[in-house]
């Protein structure tokens, strides 16, 4: 459990250090996700690594955090609600632009995917 947490934090740390030092346009934790993914691929090739990073504890810890992903947005969200005044006189126009563009982005993504993948399997 401790080792698993440490490994997850170390991936994030490595991601933050890399993006910040190289000025990359992606968030540190997203790069950390890529590092963890590569780590999992490497682990599957070398069974020796299974011991410190295996037994499913790493996966359990990860899915434990992910199970409450929604919760993690609450603190930032509370801050936002208190700053709604920043939208000032433009809130109606911004709300329309926001809802319409969100709908359009989802429709275009889904239709493009369907067009490219064919009707395909939904597995």
């Amino acid at each position, binding site marked *: 459990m401790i080792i698993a947490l440490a490994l997850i934090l170390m991936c994030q740390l490595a991601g933050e250090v890399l993006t910040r030092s190289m000025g990359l346009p992606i968030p540190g*934790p997203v790069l950390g996700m890529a590092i963890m993914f590569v780590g999992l691929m490497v682990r599957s090739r070398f069974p020796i690594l299974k011991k410190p990073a295996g037994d499913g504890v790493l996966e359990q810890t990860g899915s434990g955090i992910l199970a409450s992903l929604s919760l993690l947005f609450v603190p930032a969200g509370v801050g936002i609600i208190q700053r709604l005044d920043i939208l000032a006189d433009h809130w109606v126009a911004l709300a329309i632009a926001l809802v319409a563009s969100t709908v*359009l982005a989802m429709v275009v993504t889904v239709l493009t995917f369907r067009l490219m993948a064919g009707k395909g399997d939904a597995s």
Partner: protein
Amino acid sequence: MSDVDFSLWVYLSRTPLLWLSVTLLAYGMTDAFSKKLNRHPLANPVLLAILIIAGLLRLTGTPYRTYFEGAQFIHFLLGPATVALAFPLYEHRETVKRALLPMMVALIAGSITAFVSAVWIASILGIPRSMLLSLAPKSVTAGVAMGITEQLGGDPALTAVLVILTGITGAILATPLLNALGIKDWRARGLAVGLAAHGIGTARAFQVHPIAGTFAGIAMGLNALLTAILVPLAASFIR
């Protein structure tokens, strides 16, 4: 208030304990409520918990800074949770690999649609230019979106507000919209909500289906990268 009540309040308002507990309790309640309603999109646990806590803060006259001293422990876990998205991605890597090309094309099309349509609609409605810059990256996860806005000379605080509102909007609209379109493919549904509504959309996707969650996580990560490259490029053309 009596002296005892007052000193108790002084103690509680100084430790992170109170607002950390309140945050967990509020979310625990709204999450249970959302489950009871079979994850109905309108019963969004994030939105409801935010409203309850914001109400409590206003009622007690507590500044956000004090609240965040407790809530920061939860906020911190956003980073590790993003890293943890690697596990479902690894587990479903074969499914992802098979859909790689259509996924990439769909993400590029969706990413461009997200910021072009937002800026275009807002400019038709008479939003001033300085605000348009802050609106462009609103589908991207907050940290990156604020960075893009800063780079363009917009207002990062405004971007942060728009990002969270977009996330909640997307998480609420995704299910009814995609049902109306007759999309049953969990891969496509996940991509759409992760692209349009970043982490809050991804959290919603995981509540609905693991494959949707996995694809939402990929969409969120890649859209951050795409938007960070494309928005400054588009802005330099307009100038």
